[in-house]
């Protein structure tokens, strides 16, 4: 069907792909590798959407026709018709000013010259197929009226409207909750089976590939280092890089459960409501939790369950409307602001390694920002050097700007910033979700070591149980503003009791246990 033959490409003199050969057959082919390995560039090369100043060699053959040699006009006729694509970010992949019906219909009107009425009728069928059935999801909805998973379904409907032979899905579920991810992956699998499509599934998640793909190709630094049937490749792991990926994705830092100690943070009966025209939303509905000194607690739930609202309240960014937060014995009632000395006991690490730092500040000033709470000590420069060393970075990085660091290094810097005023609790909001498996393993090790050294308590917030399982002692599962289940990490994952927890556990992508 589609075959890449020795495809090499460089952008502005930088080599990106190096003699990539890949044979895509009907069914699902997984393409795995860390970020920057060239997975997305491979997809863009097939689509003919490469950036300017790209130099290519080799061939991209569609039924024997070399796509790289095709003029843009001919390529445009193929895009959508023979090759469809869906992207990672469902929030930006749709035009916010067009109804979902018109967006799907547009594809049909351009390529098949249908009039609006006929195109809309076909769009209706398409949306039905991707699980957005007629009465609940009329064609006149706008993207902002849909959730992330529903938008991704619209994007899929657009991509498959013309029944393309090849569908490229570039990290299609990375921005979604695990439960939503499971449903979207099911949908893709069904569509491929029904249409006899070829799906190129690009992901950094080995477990997703293990559950989905018939064949897999492992990519490292612009080269395909290993490829073959998924089970064979994942069982044998003959290439060292594949082995590294596996080790990293199953990595659990070695850590001792902390000795039982008194409670550090207690939240009782927390309520937070948002008023809105349609009655409002109770984001926190009587939440209670306790975190002991030196304890590591996971808070897991789907997006919109209230976990970020809870984190904001704990960090003192939003006052509660009812309930109490008690930190080291001092308590803050509803409507009260958190005093500075109390706030200095807590710090936070956020999800986005790229948005977490002011791009115009240097590292030393960035890391020193929490001193605003405590006053800047005379030896602050030494403290910053020590904090950098502690997270495994050389102290001479202090005068650099943030764009000089990789995603993993930035997350280390975020941890250094959180440590600088020696808090007792660090709230980690999806702090490792955006990282590659290998980098994630290193950051988890770092967190485990820092916890042992400083007796830190962690509140680890995530939508994904598999992310928190290696680093937490206890897990709280949250749904619709309430904590529905709570227990030791292993018990929650191995024997979940509440329906919602069971759904979360089921949705975790897994590599079959007998493959290792």
């Amino acid at each position, binding site marked *: 069907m589609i075959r890449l033959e020795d495809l090499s490409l460089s952008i502005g003199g930088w080599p990106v792909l190096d003699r990539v050969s890949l044979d895509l057959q009907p069914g699902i082919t997984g393409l795995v590798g860390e970020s920057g390995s060239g997975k997305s560039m491979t997809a863009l090369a097939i689509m003919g959407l490469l950036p300017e100043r790209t130099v290519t060699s080799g061939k991209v053959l569609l039924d024997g026709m070399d796509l790289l040699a095709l003029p843009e006009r001919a390529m445009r006729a193929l895009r959508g018709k023979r090759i469809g694509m869906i992207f990672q970010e469902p929030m930006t992949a749709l035009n916010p000013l067009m109804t979902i019906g018109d967006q799907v219909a547009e594809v049909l009107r351009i390529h098949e010259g249908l009039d609006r009425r006929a195109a809309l009728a076909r769009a209706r069928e398409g949306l039905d197929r991707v699980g957005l059935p007629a009465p609940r999801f009329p064609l006149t909805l706008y993207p902002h009226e849909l959730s992330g998973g529903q938008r991704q379904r619209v994007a899929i409907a657009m991509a498959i409207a013309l029944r393309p032979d090849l569908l490229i899905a570039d990290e299609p579920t990375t921005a979604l909750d695990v439960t939503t991810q499971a449903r979207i992956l099911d949908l893709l699998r069904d569509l491929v089976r029904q249409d006899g499509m070829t799906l190129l599934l690009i992901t950094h998640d080995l477990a997703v590939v293990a559950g989905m793909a018939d064949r897999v190709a492992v990519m490292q630094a612009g080269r395909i280092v290993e490829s073959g049937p998924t089970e064979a490749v994942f069982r044998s792991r003959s290439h060292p890089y594949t082995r590294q990926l596996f080790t990293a994705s199953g990595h659990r830092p070695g850590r001792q459960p902390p000795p039982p100690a008194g409670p550090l943070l207690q939240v009782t009966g927390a309520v937070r409501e948002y008023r809105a025209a349609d009655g409002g939303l109770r984001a926190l509905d009587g939440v209670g939790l306790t975190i002991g000194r030196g304890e590591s607690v996971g808070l897991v739930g789907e997006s919109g369950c209230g976990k970020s609202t809870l984190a904001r309240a704990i960090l003192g960014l939003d006052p509660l409307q009812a309930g109490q937060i008690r930190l080291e014995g001092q308590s803050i009632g509803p409507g009260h602001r958190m005093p500075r000395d109390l706030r200095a006991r807590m710090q936070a690490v956020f999800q986005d390694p790229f948005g977490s730092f002011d791009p115009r500040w240097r590292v030393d000033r960035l890391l020193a920002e*929490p001193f605003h*709470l405590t006053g800047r000590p005379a030896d602050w420069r030494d403290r910053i050097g020590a904090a950098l060393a502690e997270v495994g970075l050389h102290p001479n990085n202090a005068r650099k700007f943030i*764009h000089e660091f990789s995603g993993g290094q930035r997350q280390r810097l975020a941890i250094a910033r959180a440590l600088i005023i020696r808090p007792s609790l660090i709230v980690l909001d999806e702090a490792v979700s955006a990282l590659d498996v290998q980098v994630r393993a290193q950051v988890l090790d770092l967190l485990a070591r820092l916890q042992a050294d400083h007796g830190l308590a962690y509140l680890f917030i995530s939508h994904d149980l598999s992310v928190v399982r290696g680093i937490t002692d206890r897990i709280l599962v949250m749904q619709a503003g309430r904590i529905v289940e709570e227990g030791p990490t292993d018990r929650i994952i191995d024997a979940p009791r509440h329906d919602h927890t069971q759904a979360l556990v089921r949705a975790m992508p897994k590599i079959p246990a007998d493959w290792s």
Partner: protein
Amino acid sequence: MRTGLILGALLAGLALAAAVLSAFWTPHDIARLAIAEKLLPPSPAHWFGTDHLGRDILSMAMRGAQTSMVVALVAVAIGMGLGVPLGLLAAAHRDRWPDDLVMRGNDLVFAFPSLVIAILITAVFGPSAVNAIIAIGIFNIPVFARVTRGAALPIWTLDYIRAAQVAGKGRALISLQHVLPNIASLLIVQATIQFSLGILAEAGLSYVGLGAQPPTPSWGRMLAEAQTMVTLTPHVAVIPGLCIVLTVLGLNLLGDGLRDALDPRLRVLR
């Protein structure tokens, strides 16, 4: 395009240099009237000729550049000085009452046609350069407030703002330390645009006699005084006209060029 940026910088730089130079030296004394030498065509003694009172047009145009630039610059300063803090305030309190107050106040000012109100102000308080500055400056405030708010809102959603909040910083300090530096390039571009609009507005007010008063030279009034003689001695009108056109063109090219030069970085920031 780089060429636009360079050409714009050259033209604007030339006008600025003339304005600065005229504060210390002009080829001829502009206060000296010499009716005998009136309306001379360009010559080695008077490069751009003389006007109906025998004054050297080159010297007048240089001083006129000074008038225009001072008026436009102070008007931009008024607009930025009040508009940027208001915009930062509005963005920091998104959808709460300070935001509503600032933005509805903005709408109110925007609802009036600016030049007509400027004419009204100078007509009521008497024509002078200072009143022209105030009139133009007032209409710069909502422009800067709106641009600042629009640019600041996406910054407020970023995690480094969250980190600053966790470090106990308040809205004002965050606006000053994190938001303002990250939208500065946008404000610089807007300032060049408002600067060129200010020069046009000053020329317009002077043309109808509501700007700088005689004997202070101004491009707009030079045009107005020359218009009866435009068929007889076109250069007397053409020179100030060209001054206005080239300066405004230069500033617009500079603004566009700066926007292009700064844009890639803005995209990275997002």
